[in-house]
């Protein structure tokens, strides 16, 4: 026992120098800013965002109950609900479609994976050019404009009723490659003899999808769902480039991240309020993560 204790201490100097680089960075740029943000979030600043002073902790309560925060939280949740299920369903559809041994299937797989190469800026600008009402593509193709006047007047990204959907479409498209790659990998992990056994038992294509493919895809789908949910909660570039959180005054696409960091946000330049909003976003994400991780434990049967 004594010998074992001594050997634990013997590794310590090596462990210290090996851990130091990571520990310094993570402490200074993850742990410290989180603590500091929690502290900053309770400080009241004047309208210019200067002269911040401690004044109890009720600023968190005020922010959490403010119309701006609750509106942004609602927009964020709507954005998540719009993007995650549709993105997942489309990804599964593409993966099923390409999951066949056909000549040239590699080309189609490359196409379906391709949006993984688009950054949020690249994808958003491509979609801005599609949707923008003055110079955009849809607004300048005659028959589309006649069928859907909204593309020109006021424009999909400027109509309060369609703006969030337009941003969501851009985001779903940008994440499609990621979802496709992961679901394809999941499909390839399903043993072929399970399908063959189901065929022998007389199960048709639809039956096999629901009773063989989908259950065995469970862990993959859950993983993708968690990743997409986390991305959707943290999405920022799409709103920044496509709508600037607008259209105003409805603020139809002002999500929590846009409220915190957006150039046109009402709390821009007020570090206290920005920090409070960022901390509340963290709290929301923490709750979501806990719920999702709880689901992993109970629902999923690993093959």
């Amino acid at each position, binding site marked *: 026992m004594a010998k074992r204790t001594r050997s634990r201490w013997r590794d310590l100097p090596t462990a210290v120098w090996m851990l130091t680089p990571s520990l*310094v960075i993570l402490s200074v740029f993850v742990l410290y800013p989180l603590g500091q943000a929690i502290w900053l979030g309770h400080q009241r600043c004047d309208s210019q965002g200067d002269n911040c002073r401690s004044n109890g902790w009720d600023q968190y309560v005020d922010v959490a109950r403010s119309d701006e925060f609750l509106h942004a939280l609602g927009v964020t949740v709507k954005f998540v609900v719009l993007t995650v299920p549709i993105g997942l369903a489309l990804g599964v559809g593409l993966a099923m479609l390409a999951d066949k041994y056909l000549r040239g299937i590699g080309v*189609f797989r490359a196409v*379906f994976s391709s949006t*993984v190469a688009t950054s949020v800026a690249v994808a958003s600008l491509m979609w*801005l050019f599609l949707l*923008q009402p003055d110079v955009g593509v849809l607004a300048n193709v005659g028959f589309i404009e006649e069928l859907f006047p909204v593309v020109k007047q006021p424009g999909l990204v400027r109509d309060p009723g369609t703006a969030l959907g337009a941003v969501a479409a851009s985001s779903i*498209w940008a994440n499609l490659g990621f979802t496709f790659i992961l679901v394809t990998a999941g499909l390839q992990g399903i043993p072929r003899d399970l399908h063959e056994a189901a065929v022998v038992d007389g199960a*048709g294509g639809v039956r096999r999808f629901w009773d063989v493919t989908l259950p065995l895809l469970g862990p993959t789908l859950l993983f993708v769902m968690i990743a997409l949910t986390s991305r959707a909660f943290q999405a920022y570039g799409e709103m920044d480039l496509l709508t600037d959180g607008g259209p105003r005054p409805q603020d139809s696409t002002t999500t929590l991240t846009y409220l915190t960091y957006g150039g046109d946000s009402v709390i821009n330049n007020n570090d206290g309020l920005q920090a409070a909003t960022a901390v509340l*976003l963290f709290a929301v994400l923490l709750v979501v993560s806990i719920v999702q991780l709880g689901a992993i434990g109970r629902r999923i049967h690993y093959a």
Partner: protein
Amino acid sequence: MPGDGTTTYDTPIGWRAVGRYGLLVLVAALVLFPVYTTVVAALKEGNQVLNNPLVPDGFTLRILAKAWDEGNLGRYLLNSGVVAVVITAAQLLTSVLSAYAFAILDFPGRTIMFGVFLATLLVPLEATLVVNRRTVDSLGWINSYQGLTVPFLATAFGTFLLRQVFLTLPRDLRDAAAIDGVGHLGFLRHVAVPLVRPTLGAMAMLSFLSAWNQYLWPNLVTTESDMYTVQSGLKQISEARLDEPNLVMAGTIIAAIPIVVVLLIFQRSLIRGLTSGAVKG
């Protein structure tokens, strides 16, 4: 189409394949549609963009060249390249070291320390950036490579990923090396790292992609054109030149090409990386 199952053997293979190919082509066209319109726009002269936006006028690289000249894109690409390479290399180094300490070494406080690392995974980037911008500002790092890279030189996710593979190395391997008088650093460099090379490649691709794709942070800590990354630069171009969408679209294409090439070369590592965990900036 008849059911996939029992009819497989008596259906003429030709018709099923034709149907499947037709569907594949249609869906592929839909997926590529935004890319197509972007390319078409970049091939049109300025005053022609609003005419027939679905039909290219011809083939010319003139607009691409103009976007390159006027957009400072070379500089943005260089900045993004430097930032992504520095972050990737540093993350590999710091993660290998900390993962090795957690997986192979035994020391007091290991469990608690590992818990601290894992806890940082729960903190979203957005919760830290308000304060990080102040930190970087007070260090005088606004508009610098330090400001763009230093906050991201370590990753708990990479540490976690590499620890998992280091744990699979047989204990005997380390014991044998120790008997031969090989220290931890020697064992790490000559045995452990070469054995986990595929995981390192996967992690490198994830790090590179997320560093290259960072959007919010570069916008917060750069104000000079010469320090913009591709992503923050594209925002500037789009805001300044929306009246010339063909130039903006050409800029977008130029910005996308390098990462497409990188992904094509390293696609195996990318897929392995994506399936081992999900991170994107």
